[in-house]
């Protein structure tokens, strides 16, 4: 069987201009001064990996190591500067808080909007609405605009919607860290159930215990380089050893 995610020699470059070029005047001024594309920054450098169906993979590494960039590339939000990414199947991305939410709309309206983003029509979402409301535990706050939600509430709603079906690929980027302990437990249970149903999980977390607990495999990224790609325990230990060495 073909792997669900293939990342082939992917590099991602960002331009770290001090200010964005938003106006024509600035554009031509910078063009004249040869200041366009000035500060290049490679968030990912020649990363290759394949993930098979049903695997649970964690991405670990310090802040700015390229974890979120890699997730966004896999989710199709960003296009790689170099290399190629192939994904097979439905992706439910939980990248950052409130991915796919319109903050001006109420929670209820966002359930339908977010569902539509994932390709579910209104009838389908209405059928599952009570289940979502129930799992998110939002109660009467469901009719409040999302901009007034706490980060925990946003995460709860997002997770409840994304996991309403069995997505082929579930991407979870730190969003669970903001929920309270009880809700985190609930989410983990649901993730395990999805894994049993052959969902592929991509998970970013700074919590080594969680990583070892939920994921079998872990990938350690450091400054855009793939350092280690092995079972989660070995990878976590290697990662921890790296900064303990620095401290010593």
């Amino acid at each position, binding site marked *: 069987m073909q792997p669900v995610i293939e990342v082939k020699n992917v590099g991602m470059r960002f331009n770290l201009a001090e200010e964005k070029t938003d106006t024509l005047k600035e554009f031509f001024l910078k063009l004249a001064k040869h200041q366009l594309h000035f500060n290049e920054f490679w968030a990912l450098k020649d990363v290759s990996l394949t993930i098979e169906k049903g695997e649970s993979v964690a991405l670990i590494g310090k802040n700015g190591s390229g974890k979120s960039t890699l997730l966004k590339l896999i989710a199709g939000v960003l296009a790689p500067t170099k290399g190629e990414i192939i994904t097979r199947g439905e992706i439910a991305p939980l990248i950052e808080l409130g991915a796919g939410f319109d903050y001006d709309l109420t929670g209820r309206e966002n359930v339908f909007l977010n569902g*539509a983003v994932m390709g579910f029509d209104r009838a389908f979402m209405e059928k599952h609405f009570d289940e979502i409301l129930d799992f998110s535990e939002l109660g009467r706050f469901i009719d409040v605009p999302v901009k007034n939600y706490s980060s925990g509430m946003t995460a709860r709603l997002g997770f409840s919607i994304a996991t309403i079906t069995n997505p082929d690929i579930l991407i979870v980027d730190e969003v669970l860290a903001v929920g309270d302990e009880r809700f985190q437990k609930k989410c983990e249970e649901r993730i395990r159930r999805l894994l049993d149903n052959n969902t592929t999980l991509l998970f970013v977390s700074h919590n080594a215990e969680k990583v070892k607990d939920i994921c079998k495999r872990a990938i350690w990224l450091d400054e855009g380089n793939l350092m280690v790609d092995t079972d989660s325990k070995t990878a976590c230990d290697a990662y921890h050893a790296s900064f303990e060495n620095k401290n010593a």
Partner: protein
Amino acid sequence: MKRKLELWAYQARKFRPLVKELIKRDLKVKYRRSFLGYVWSLLNPLLMMAVMSLVFSHFFRFQMEGVSYPLYLICGQTLFNFFNESTNQSMFAILGNATLLKKVYIPKFIFPLARTLSSFVTMSFSLGAIVIVIPFTGTPITPYILLFWVPLVFLFLFSCGVGLVLSALSVYFRDITHLYSVVILAWMYFTPIFYPTTIIPDHLSLLFKLNPLYHFIAFFRDTVVYGCMPSSATWLGCAVPGVVVFLLGFLIFRKLQKNFILYI
């Protein structure tokens, strides 16, 4: 090639609910907290027509060759308003949905497309105003009125193409949004909306006919106001810019969309 087509079909199926939701959201936002809601789509053109016919029939006294000036006016107005609203709305479609685009994968052209569609829905309500006006003006109805939708379809394609380009350009250069309001004003005076085509001087007539809106409106008026078959020149003047601008807009948008995410 086949794989590509399959992918398109798959995406079209997958994102149809999203287009629907976006249109619903646009309409909801438009009439939020207004007492009359959708009725405004009907009432607004009627009131505008009343004001403008009052002004122009007293100050300018155009020779209308036996057709009703208010009806002539509201036809041009309805079509131009659609073009104005849909392109203006599309222009902010990408910028306004930045929060969605930054975090989930959605084919980006969906946003300007949905904005154009929702303006089209609003315009179809406004067509009701024309239906109301026709009997009051005593305009005879001919079978040609059944063709009224033809220019609307081509106008939709044209507006969609223009909207796609504007939405992409506005991401890179916000100046466009300010410039466009001037362009649209000039465009309005350049299009026979409130004045009859007969006042256009002969030596400028060719220039006026290069304006696609001229033909969309002419086609619509031929079927509704004049009750005659539009000339083949008018047919061509609608179909060619409609299809060409739509395809061109799509291609330009596809070229420009790659780096959106870094700018919004």
